[in-house]
């Protein structure tokens, strides 16, 4: 992470005006979302004009069904995938495996976590939580091939295995970083060349795109590609930036014969309807907010059970899934604002976290439970009467001693709280008493 910070900052310096670039990016995304319907229609029309089949998926289940349908039609056996968080969002891999297909992740980091039967740990660096020793171990177990724990050797092992899969695969599945409306193109950025191979070699290509990935014009890439690389990995530009406009055209040497693009809603329109937080759909998944977040820098990855991590994940997950189930994410933040400060498309992340908190507490669903209300009312009453406060402080110590006898046991009325938490011991002497003693 230290190295990432250095190169990221160097790459920002490379721009004439990084802050200006952020504003332009935010404006572009604002306009893209403001006319999302028109852009999507144009995108789909152009794609279809070159022989691509465009599918519209309202939910994650629809998207899975469409993909399974295509695989059935193609009598596919082996599916090779390049990194796509959207496929994690729709839980595609388990569905494909249940249906009997062999699915191979071709991004090195994704491949490693796949061998470990884990979801990706980070938006951009999926296997960053593992040491080289752990990677060697999983290669030994799963591939029976791990000459040493040297990253170069391990990469070669993965390369050999993955190359074979590329040649075997009947179907390739990719995500998209951007969908260009005015030329009908898919833009993918990557460093390993695996997405390009996924899109070039198999007979059938499926690209899964969230509807918010739209950029109005091809020229907007001149801004977004270097910004994404700068914030994602600290590069000026990622090694491979590919654009796909359709399946193999007459006279072309290679490329898929069938090309399917799936436009996925899956609750994105709910977030679009929230005019205040709409800008969160402008996210380009660079991961910069989670790299600067004081919370996520210490506790990252799998701990949260969400597909999209970091501050952006905490903002959008309650919208994409269910507010009451995922509201805790918005509370796990110090609201320091480092995320909003760094976001290349200027999403007002920490204010959105605050707003999620207030939405979660708003009636009717967010009404606190009766006991919770009673507890806080009592606390408020006691805390605003100094005499009661003094008595409570003294009784509290006794109560704590008594509570020890039943703590976390079945008789403890507070057991849901105390079974995983220990309250600090109340002080023998209050500050007020201590202060009074010291008065001359």
């Amino acid at each position, binding site marked *: 992470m230290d190295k990432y910070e250095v190169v990221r900052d160097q790459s920002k310096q*490379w*721009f*004439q*005006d*990084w802050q*200006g670039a952020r*504003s*332009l990016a*935010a*404006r*572009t995304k*604002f*306009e893209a979302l*403001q006319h*999302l*319907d028109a852009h*999507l*229609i144009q995108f789909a029309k152009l794609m279809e004009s070159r022989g691509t089949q465009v*599918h*519209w*998926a*309202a939910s994650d289940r629809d998207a899975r069904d469409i993909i399974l349908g295509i695989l059935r039609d193609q009598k596919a056996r082996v599916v090779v995938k390049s990194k796509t968080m959207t496929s994690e969002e729709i839980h595609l891999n388990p569905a494909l495996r249940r249906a009997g297909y062999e699915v191979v992740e071709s991004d090195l980091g994704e491949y490693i976590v796949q061998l470990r039967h884990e979801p990706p740990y980070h938006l951009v660096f999926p296997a960053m939580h593992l040491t080289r020793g752990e990677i060697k171990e999983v290669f030994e177990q799963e591939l029976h091939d791990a000459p040493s724990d040297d990253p170069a050797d391990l990469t070669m092992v993965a390369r050999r295995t993955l*190359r074979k899969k590329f*040649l075997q695969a009947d179907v390739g599945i990719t995500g998209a970083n951007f969908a260009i409306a005015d*030329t009908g193109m898919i833009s993918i950025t990557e460093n390993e*060349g695996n997405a*390009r*191979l996924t*899109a*070039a*070699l198999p007979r059938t290509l499926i690209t899964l795109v969230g*509807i918010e990935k739209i950029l*109005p*014009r091809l*020229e907007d*890439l*001149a*801004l977004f590609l*270097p910004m994404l690389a700068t914030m994602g990995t600290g590069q*000026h*530009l990622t*090694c*491979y*930036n590919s*654009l796909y406009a359709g399946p193999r*055209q007459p006279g072309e*040497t*290679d*490329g898929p014969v069938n090309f399917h693009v799936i436009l996925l*809603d899956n609750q994105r*329109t*709910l977030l*679009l*309807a*929230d*005019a*205040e937080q*709409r*800008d969160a759909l402008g996210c380009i998944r660079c991961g910069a907010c989670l790299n600067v977040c004081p919370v996520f820098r210490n506790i990252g990855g799998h701990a949260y059970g969400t597909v999209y991590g970091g501050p952006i994940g905490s903002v959008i997950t309650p919208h994409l899934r269910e507010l009451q189930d995922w509201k805790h994410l918005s509370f796990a933040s110090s609201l320091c604002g480092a995320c909003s400060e760094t976001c290349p498309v*200027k999403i007002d992340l920490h204010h959105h976290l605050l707003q999620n908190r207030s939405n979660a507490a708003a009636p009717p669903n967010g009404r606190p439970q009766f006991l919770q209300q009673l507890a806080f009312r009592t606390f408020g009453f006691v805390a605003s009467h100094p005499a009661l406060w003094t008595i409570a402080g003294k009784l509290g110590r006794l109560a704590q001693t008594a509570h020890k006898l039943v703590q976390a046991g079945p008789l403890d009325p507070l057991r849901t709280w105390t079974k995983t938490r220990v309250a600090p011991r109340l002080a023998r002497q209050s500050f007020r008493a201590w202060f009074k003693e010291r008065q001359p």
Partner: protein
Amino acid sequence: MNSRETILARIREALLQKAVPRHGSGLPSLIERHSVLPLAPTATETQLALFAENAVELKTDFRYVSDDTQLLSQLKTIATEENWRLISTHRSARLSTLATQLGANVVFTDGGYDKDELERCDAGITECDALVAQTGSVLLTNRSAGGRALSCLPPHHIVVASTSQLVPDLSSAMELLREK
């Protein structure tokens, strides 16, 4: 209502809620983009120098040759050093004859190829559409580079380009792409 209409209807309904543009409105113009993006030189010599500098930073082995004879001898040196046995390329005025003189068997990708054979190649040699000075990167298309996989599947990719193909920045590269 089919899913296309459902999604479009949801979008239109959502957009009835008006959002306030916080960072200005309207799509940025080319001039605005130019004012924030990394500088891009206009003179060919400066473009070449910048391209070389950026390309080397990306770990490209950049070599400048003044004519076809020098080009051939450079390629021969690389072919010998790396012990090329099988290479792939596509038919073009420059590459067709060049590739056959390197002492390796040649696979042409034009009109389709065997994937396994391409995978066995030691190197792929292609032309390109443009060299981007601002980033040190190379713009390729299906047509200029013998398809989608030739530049990517063999472990070694060699691009033969001329200085006339230099463009200052990504914006001009995108413009060029749009024309094609």
